[in-house]
Structure formats: C-alpha cells, structure tokens
C-alpha cells in the first residue's frame, strides 16, 4: 500500500510543532495540518511558559523566540468578603519562565520548524478518518492523506480522538476567558510579574490570572464548565467583573476564549490507541491546581517524545513505548506529583470559604479594638470555627497543594 507520509500531525500548536521538529530530527518526513491561517491564529494561553522543555529542542530559544518578559515576580492576591484583601509577592531574578502571546509565539515556532524542513499545510482541517489494516486515511478540507501513524496534536478538543468516538465531558474541562489590555506595568524591561487571583470569581470553581507582557497585560479567568452550567452568571460577564475588580486601567485590545483540559493524572484519557499518539491538551496533559495552569511545557515535552516514539514504532517497537517514555520524562512524573493537589481542589471549600476564614483571622489579628489581641493561631482557629470549617482539615488540604 502507498503512503503519503509515515506520520501526519493534526494541529500545529505547541505540541504539534514540537512533534514535527523531533520527527524531522529522527529522519522522518511528517505532514502537518493546521486549521488556522497561521500557527497561533486560533490559540489562547494565559500565558506563562516554563521554557525548560523548549530549551532542550532549541537551546538558544531565549535569544530567538518572541518571548514577552521573564517572570521575576510571583504574586498571589486573595480577595475576601467585606472588601478585605490579602496579597504577597515573591521576587527572584530567574529566567525559567516567560510571559508569551500565542499568536506571535506559535507563528515564530512554526517558522523555526519550517526552517528545518517541516511542511505545514495551513487553513486545513481534519474532517473525518478511516482506519485500515495497515494505515489510516485522514479526510482533510484539502483532500485525503494516507499515513501509517497519526499524532493528535489538535489541542483540548482532540479532533482525532473525537472522530474515533471519544466524547468530551464538562467535568473534565475548564473554560478560559481572556482579555489583553493596553495597561503596561511599571517594571524594568527584564522583569515581569505573574499574579494568581483568588476570590474574584465567586460562586464558580476557578480563579484568575494577570501576566505582564512587553507592552500589554494579559488578564483572564479559568472556570470549571460544570460550575458555569449550574451557576447563575454568564462567562462573558465573569471576566468583565473580574477586570473591574482588579481595577487595572487600560483599553481592552482583544477578547478571547479557549477550553482547558482538567483531567488530572488519575483520569487521563488514553495516550495512544490504534495508530494514534496523543500529545499536549489532546491527551489531557495539563497540570492545574485550580488557579495556576501549566500545559504549554507539557505539550512541548510530550510532542518532542511523540516524534521520537513514532520513529521507534515505525522501526518495530510497540506503541506502548510512547507511554513508557512519557513516564520516564517530566511530563507524566509531574502530572503524577500534582494529582494529590488536584484531588484536594475538588473540595468546594476552596472556592470562597477558606479565603474568607483566612481574612477574618488576619482582620482579628490586625484590628486593635481595645480587647486583648489574640495570637495568630488563636485567631485562625476561632475564625475557622465561626465559619463552620475544620482548621486541621483545612491545613491538611492546603498541605496537599503546596
């Protein structure tokens, strides 16, 4: 039987581009199809990228890539009831993570792949597929492609898996709603801030983020889809209330949204099946503690491994080698480490009640009202008790996360 290529990669986002680069380095000649007019045209992240995985593929990425700012400040902001606010900042001049804007970044990353000989067919989407004994035929908007193996790099909506019968479920998804605003934080050029915001999306499971870019700021919320379904507010309103709550000045430049996988290590969909290897969001490879989200480095890491694995499979290894390689890498080991925190966050107390109890205690501690000032631990115990929460349970739950 004839093949158009050994492997087709569906989606030229972070996972797909990484897989294509590593496949070419392995001597393969992959076909990549991308729905957007260019890579990144349809992609949305917060976005703070940990660049370790990318550096292993492109060592001089810091000099070449359109990264926005290195994240040198990590801020947590907790908005409690009664206008109370708790925030703290950790500063460290490191260059392990950068803010990015995907329309710019992915376009550059795709061009880096094209430079080493990867062919990407843009404006091309996957519509159907047929499995055959010795291959698989993809029906794309530009015609059929027959290949030995497929890498599903189509992101959270997993186009290949869905055509093969997988249904997406609201409980495994978050919705990210984002705005890029013209506000520029007053920081030196080589510094940037990542802020995690808790308590401005009340009544919904989720949180918010603020990232400083070179000359814009990215803000947004990430919300469990099932909590939006059963809630009483529209996603489009949550993000605006959030922006108003933050009080940042500046015009809105772009309004965007994207689903986010929320499976966790214990609920991952299959990483490989039939003639398919799944990478990045399509494989549910994303770490979320409910507030902070890490999917970009996992997409790059799993993509790189898929490119190497597919070569081994063509040379005779079983497909399961892909999962074994992922297990030995940071991708699945970090997913596994994050599993406990992930489970702890299904506790609804995390979304509102613990924050309020914490602020209540701090308020008791700081307000001098003539009465004797309690110790912090006394204040915490009393405040949790008054709010009907169990302090030692809370400490246990929080301990799982940190």
């Amino acid at each position, binding site marked *: 039987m004839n093949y158009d290529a050994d492997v087709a990669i569906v989606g030229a986002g972070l996972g797909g581009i990484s897989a294509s680069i590593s496949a070419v380095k392995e001597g393969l000649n992959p076909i990549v199809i991308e729905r957007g007019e260019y890579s990144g045209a*349809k992609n949305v992240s917060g976005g703070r990228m940990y660049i370790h995985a990318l550096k292993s593929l492109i060592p001089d990425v810091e000099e070449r890539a359109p990264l926005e700012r290195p994240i040198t400040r990590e801020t947590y902001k907790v908005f409690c009831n009664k206008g109370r606010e708790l925030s703290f900042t950790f500063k460290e001049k490191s260059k392990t993570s950068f803010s990015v804007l995907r329309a710019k970044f992915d376009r550059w990353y795709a061009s880096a792949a094209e430079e080493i000989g990867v062919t990407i067919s843009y404006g091309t989407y996957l519509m159907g597929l047929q499995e055959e004994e010795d291959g698989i035929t993809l029906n794309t908007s530009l015609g059929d492609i027959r290949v030995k193996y497929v890498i599903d790099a189509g992101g959270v909506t997993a186009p290949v898996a869905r055509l093969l019968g997988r249904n997406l479920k609201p409980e495994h998804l978050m919705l990210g709603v984002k705005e890029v605003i013209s506000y520029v934080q007053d920081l030196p050029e080589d510094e940037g801030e990542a802020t995690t915001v808790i308590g401005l999306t009340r009544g919904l499971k989720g949180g918010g983020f603020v990232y400083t870019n070179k000359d814009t700021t990215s803000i947004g919320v990430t919300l469990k889809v099932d909590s939006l379904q059963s809630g009483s507010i529209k*996603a489009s309103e949550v993000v605006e209330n959030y922006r108003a709550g933050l009080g940042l000045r500046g015009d*809105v430049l772009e309004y965007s949204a994207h689903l986010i996988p929320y499976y966790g290590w214990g609920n991952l969909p299959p990483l490989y099946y039939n003639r398919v290897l799944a990478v990045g969001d399509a494989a549910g490879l994303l770490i979320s503690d409910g507030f902070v989200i890490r999917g970009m480095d996992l997409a790059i890491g799993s993509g790189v491994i898929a490119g190497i694995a597919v070569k081994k499979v063509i040379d005779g290894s079983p497909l399961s080698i892909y999962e074994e390689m992922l297990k030995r890498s940071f991708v699945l080991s970090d997913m596994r480490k994050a599993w406990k925190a992930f489970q702890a966050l299904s506790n609804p107390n995390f979304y509102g009640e613990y924050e309020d109890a914490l602020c209540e205690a701090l308020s008791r501690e700081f307000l001098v009202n003539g009465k004797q000032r309690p110790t912090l631990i006394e204040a915490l115990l009393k405040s949790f008790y008054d709010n009907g929460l169990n302090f030692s349970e809370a400490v246990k739950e929080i301990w799982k996360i940190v």
Partner: protein
Amino acid sequence: MENSVIPLLKRLSLNKYEVSQESHISINTNICKTCVEKPCIRVCPAGTYEAMPDGTVTAHYERCLECGAALVACPFGAISFKWPDKGITYRYG
C-alpha cells in the same frame, strides 16, 4: 481608559473575523423548548446562544470565538458544532 464593564458585542468587535455564509452551528430547537435552565447561554463566552420568546434558542454563529465549549455546553445534545471554514484570527492569543 475603561474601568467599567464593556458590553460583550463591543468586546467582540475588537476581534478579527472572517465570517462564512453558512452557520457552523445547528441547534435542535425542539429540545430547547423543554429546557428550562438553558445552561448553554451561561457557558458560551461569545454570547452565541440567545433565548427566544417561544422557548427556543438561536445561534449567532458569527460571534463564535472557537473556544470549543459548544461541544459540551448543552447537557441534552441539542447543539451540533463543527469548526467554521475561516472564523476568528487572534492577533495576541
């Protein structure tokens, strides 16, 4: 300098769209007539789904941000969604 809430349609108008002639979303509105809560309206960040006085829901497909939520927004399977031919092109992303 805007610190107050900006209406959704104004926010959507900031985006670059190439709208197809044909809708990429279809709705089985018979199901909607029996649906009281209409969760699709809360989930969709683009305000694509609008309730009509007769209990059905109409899809303003040209507003679609292609986030993918339409694939799970309706618990009763009334929404059929495929990717549009052209659609949105983000400049920041």
